[in-house]
């Protein structure tokens, strides 16, 4: 449960959290140990001070106790005035009567012995310390001294010490946390950059982007692996693009490419008022070649036709293989109608030239239909249809010729 909650956190927060927990685990025992040690050491020292004071007083009062001298005994007790924590003190004679009693701030109520007078005894509560000291004069029991002291000095000292420890712990905690946060950036920053570049790839659909992380650690490895993966993706994408838009036999753009392109051509012809011409080229007698000499020869022939078409065209003109023996040429920026018709002538001449394929002389012809946009059609399907109609007109007339579309060709 807790682990699940933790694993949902961002790495940045995880790292900080781990650091905090680690630092606390490191600091807490030290703080506890130091404080406990100081607590007991200071308490021992303070209690020892009380004991020494009690011993001094009892030593001073011993003779007075032996001679029942209350005044001198009180004088001895009065020296406790110098010790601010000493609250009350009472001297008892051996039989239990009070010889003298001292109280700070006029608090003079007698203390009570809390054990047999001959026995040394101590009573420690959270705020006060009582001590009963039997008093001897040359080994002769002469009574007992009972003192009561507050532990305020002790608590004061401990308070300051606790404050110092807490401050020191806080300082070392914040220092190490600061260091951890700074160091953590070396992990999270490359991760963030990697993440950002992955997002960029998703948004822009551009597989050529590469993450800009060059460290030699795991994140660097991850980023390089990611880059390699993208490279593979890009290659595969290019390949798919080729398969989708290019014809394998001739290396020319295929029908898909042609359909997209014709839309753009019609669009820009209408928008910029530029005329474009479309030629449909159908090879005559291709079926016989294919049937008699085989597909391989047919394919080779198509390849040769493709090459010949390409050499004839300007760079701005486009040639496609749109079907089995059908080709199409798009000519943009047509200012003179003779340009496409002259081109059609050249194409017919080039295609009908015999060629040697696998030891055979092969000869085909070409029938070409030409249409103009926007003259004959204002959309791509009309444009295509017009060229197609013109092409069939050419084919049905005399083979190896071209026709420009005209309205009376309508079937």
């Amino acid at each position, binding site marked *: 449960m807790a682990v699940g909650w933790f694993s949902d956190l961002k790495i940045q927060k995880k790292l900080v959290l781990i650091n905090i927990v680690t630092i606390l685990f490191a600091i807490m025992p030290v703080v506890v140990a130091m404080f406990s040690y100081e607590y007991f050491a200071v308490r021992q020292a303070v209690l020892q001070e009380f004991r020494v004071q009690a011993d001094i007083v009892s030593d001073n009062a011993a003779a007075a106790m032996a001679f*029942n001298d209350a005044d001198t005994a009180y004088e001895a007790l009065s020296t406790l005035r110098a010790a601010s924590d000493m609250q009350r003190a009472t001297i008892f004679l051996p039989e239990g*009567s009070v010889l003298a009693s001292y109280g700070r701030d006029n608090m003079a109520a007698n203390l009570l012995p809390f054990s047999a007078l001959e026995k040394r005894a101590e009573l420690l509560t959270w705020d006060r310390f009582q001590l009963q000291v039997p008093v001897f004069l040359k080994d*002769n029991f002469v009574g007992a001294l009972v003192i009561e002291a507050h532990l305020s000095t002790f608590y004061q000292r401990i308070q300051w010490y606790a404050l110092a420890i807490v401050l020191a712990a806080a300082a070392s905690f914040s220092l190490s946390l600061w260091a951890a946060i700074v160091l953590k950036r070396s992990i999270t920053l490359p991760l963030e950059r990697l993440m950002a570049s992955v997002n960029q790839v998703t948004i822009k659909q551009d597989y050529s982007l590469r993450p800009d992380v060059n460290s030699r650690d795991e994140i660097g490895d991850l980023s390089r692996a990611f880059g390699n993966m993208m490279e593979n993706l890009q290659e595969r994408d290019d390949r798919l693009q080729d398969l989708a838009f290019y014809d394998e036999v001739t290396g020319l753009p295929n029908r898909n490419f042609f359909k997209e392109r014709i839309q753009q051509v019609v669009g820009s012809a209408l928008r910029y008022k530029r005329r474009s011409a479309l030629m449909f080229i159908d090879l005559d007698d291709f079926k016989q070649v294919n049937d008699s000499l085989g597909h391989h020869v047919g394919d080779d022939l198509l390849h040769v036709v493709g090459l010949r078409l390409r050499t004839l065209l300007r760079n701005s003109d486009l040639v496609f293989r749109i079907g089995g023996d059908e080709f199409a040429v798009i000519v943009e920026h047509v200012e003179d109608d003779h340009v496409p018709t002259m081109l059609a002538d050249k194409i017919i001449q080039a295609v009908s030239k015999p060629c040697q394929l696998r030891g055979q002389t092969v000869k085909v012809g070409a029938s070409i239909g030409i249409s103009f946009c926007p003259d004959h059609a204002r959309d791509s399907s009309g444009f295509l249809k017009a060229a197609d109609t013109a092409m069939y007109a050419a084919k049905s007339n005399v083979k190896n010729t071209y026709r420009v579309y005209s309205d009376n060709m309508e079937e």
Partner: protein
Amino acid sequence: MKTLAKLLQVLVTVAVSLVLCTGASSDLWSRDALPEYVIKAGYLYHFGQLTEWPQQTEATEFTLCYYGSELAGKALAGLVHKKINGQPINVRYIDDAASAKACRMLFIAETDDLRSKSILRESARLPVLTVTDSPALADQGAVIFLRPEGQKLVFEIDNELAKQAQLTISSRLLRLGK
């Protein structure tokens, strides 16, 4: 002799207990003389504890001599089981000056007769701590003079005399003297 001492001891203890049961030291003096001497005996004991004598090699016991009231003797008998400076107390009655040189401490109780004075004079030259409770002898060479003051028993110490007798009295005791 031993049984007598024992009996006395018991008596003294009973007496002390009685005094303590009354809970006050106030009217000690008027009621009975023995409790008064019990107190005085206690004082003598502590005097002995707080005084140093010059080295006396052959002494194996602490000889506490007295002269005068027999009550003092009875009270002092209560000290025989105690020790001073590690030496058992030996209580001894003397009635001539010549015997004084065997004493460490000499108590002259309630008398100021000629003999007491001559004993005192003799003791002044010896390392003997002389104590008296008779006012007439206070300035006749006794180192310590015990007297009642109000409800209490107090003492005066003549430290000059003590020094002459080669006695060193503890400052703690001197401080308590009037």
